[in-house]
């Protein structure tokens, strides 16, 4: 075990992946010598060579197109998009190509080896173009897997699983936790399962569900609620696609209430899918409407970031609303 921050955990996972398989590559804008603008790929070029860890030209559609080709060829590309806000020029390559590659060829070809890493989310005074949480845009796309870790331990285990998974995975990294989140991480190799949520804390009055950086928000709100005598079950969804309906349903059947906290804007975010599914799965068990505490339906602001975000106080209010319904 070692103390690592989230960036170090990711760097460590990448290093393990590149060491075990010389067909594994890391690339993206400024990823090479510089080690990425957040330094997630720091040291990898020196250790694994310029051919396997390199800068690309500034063209996201090219990065993912190139990565799709490499994956189809049998290499194991790990492509970085510098900010999740800049993943959209690659949207066609991801949604029309990556996601449909295996299906359209009748499994003659696939890009299952592909992993796309990208820092997402707000809280860093980044304004509308350095703060987005675009997971829902990908969640409507069969063929992709989408994963979001909440801390260094999760990040390493989930990233290694993503790299080795035989399907393309988009791995969203909560950038406001890159250095802020520090924890014990095994130095050796391990994996955490994709498609499985984790019950982080058991409780009985209400289920609180989130993913990535919002986990600390709902944990904080749960603490507040406990002080008011409300017992919260806290779940980290971890995988957005495919998502773990069973774990969430089981919890809601137990608690009778569900609150979903999401950083992205409310409308058609992934919280919508969860609410739609759970109202169906748990209809007779729900004692109050499923609460969605989300970003507002606007671009991510700068000066008024504090007001905008789905913070622990808004979650706490919603918990009370739900319990007192």
């Amino acid at each position: 075990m070692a103390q690592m921050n989230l960036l170090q955990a990711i760097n460590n996972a990448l290093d393990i992946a590149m060491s075990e398989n010389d067909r594994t590559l890391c690339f993206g804008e400024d990823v090479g010598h510089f080690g990425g603008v957040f330094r997630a790929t720091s040291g990898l070029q020196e250790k694994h060579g310029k051919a396997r860890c390199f800068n690309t030209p500034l063209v996201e559609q090219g990065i993912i197109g190139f990565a799709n080709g490499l994956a189809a060829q049998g290499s194991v590309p790990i492509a970085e998009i510098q900010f999740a806000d800049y993943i959209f020029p690659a949207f066609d390559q991801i949604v029309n190509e990556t996601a449909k590659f295996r299906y359209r060829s009748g499994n003659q070809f696939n890009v299952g080896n592909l992993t796309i890493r990208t820092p997402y989310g707000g809280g860093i005074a980044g304004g509308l173009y350095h703060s987005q949480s675009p997971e829902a845009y990908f969640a409507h796309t069969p063929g992709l897997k989408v994963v979001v870790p909440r801390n260094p331990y999760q990040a390493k285990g989930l990233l290694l699983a993503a790299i080795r998974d035989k399907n393309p995975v988009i791995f969203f990294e909560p950038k406001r936790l890159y250095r802020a989140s520090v924890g014990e991480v095994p130095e050796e190799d391990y994996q955490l399962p994709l498609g499985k949520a984790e019950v982080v804390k058991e409780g009985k009055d209400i289920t609180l569900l989130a993913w990535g950086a919002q986990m600390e928000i709902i944990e904080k709100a749960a603490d507040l609620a406990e002080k008011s005598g409300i017992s919260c079950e806290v779940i980290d969804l971890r995988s957005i696609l495919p998502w773990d309906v069973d774990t969430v349903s089981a919890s809601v059947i137990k608690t009778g209430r569900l609150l979903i906290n999401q950083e992205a804007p409310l409308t058609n975010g992934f919280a919508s899918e969860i609410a739609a599914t759970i109202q169906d799965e748990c209809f007779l068990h729900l004692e109050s409407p499923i609460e969605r505490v989300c970003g507002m339906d606007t671009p991510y602001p700068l000066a008024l970031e504090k007001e905008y975000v789905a913070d622990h106080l808004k979650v706490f209010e919603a918990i009370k609303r739900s319990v007192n319904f």
Partner: protein
Amino acid sequence: MNRDEYKQGLDVHTPVFIDGHSVEIPVLKILNHDGTVFPGAELPEINQELAVKIYQSFVFHRVLDERMVASQRQGRLSFYLTALGEEATTIGGTAGLKPQDMIMAQYREQGALIFRGFSLENFMNQMFSNEKDLGKGRQMPIHYGSNDLNYMTVSSPLATQIPQASGYAYGQKLQGLDAVTLCYFGEGAASEGDFHAGLNMAAVHNAPVIFFCRNNGYAISTPSDEQFRGNGIASRGVGYGIKTIRVDGNDVLAVLKATQVARDYAVKEHKPVLIEGMTYRLGAHSTSDDPTGYRTREEEDKWQKNDPVLRMKKWMEANNWWDDSQENELKEQYKEKILAAVKVAEKIDKPPVEDLITDVYDIPTPQLTRQLNELKEHIKKYPYAYPFTAGRIK
């Protein structure tokens, strides 16, 4: 190119603009219209066997296109797309490769598959999207793919295969393979952002990819002078620092030569090459299109006279490698085989209902399995509404 290098351009003190005229682009021609070889021309590596294989591929291609358009007209097939007039770009280009080279095509490159020996059954099963289709009946007709033949499954979104080809070739290079990737695309598709991305990335990362632009003058109804204003697509290669060659795309020997030389260079130098084949889409864009609305008969006639197949035939005849009776016999034979294959393929079952959810992931997710089970229960309730699958659900 290193920054200091290109900065050493001539200094001028009054404004001098460069433009399309600043670059002269020669056109490689080997075979004259009368089937003779141009004086001084350097022939590609070709012997009688290869020449006959190429020519037979031409004949098969023409018969296949003709028969499938007829089938579409008869309502047996939903869609088809011919490559009339530009067969030399695909057959000649593929003949210049080795079997282990990957081909990533746009959609009008059935010639490449024909040359590589894609079976008639495979063609038919794809077009009739039956359960024997290698692609499991999921894509519209003509979206072929073959892992065995190193022909990447075609995908409709244009130009997406271009940066993919760069990545594929980079992977081949890293593995140290004696293999390149050849990437076909139209002059229309070359307007997409993915073209820019793919060529630049191949140049920067030294990927052994041959970019082959079929410049056939049209993108559906849009003529190339409404597509771009540069000197064709070749003039762009210069901007990427990619070795570039323009060939007469209706001269199969020129195409073959260019591809052979390009392959050599790409494998040895680990660098990309751009080939622009100048040709013409003699037919409609597809069976959904009618070109009389956007171009003249005269223009078509002019190109009709520039037939790549006829040109090669004259050369073959001059070599005593081919004659009319051979041709007629072969045509009849192909025609019959194709007709028979159509009849077989259209009777083969659609894929089983399970294939709705396979290959979305390596293993269906729980959600997908549940959706499939619900669907099966539903079909059992209304078997008459789902005649293709109802009888086969357990």
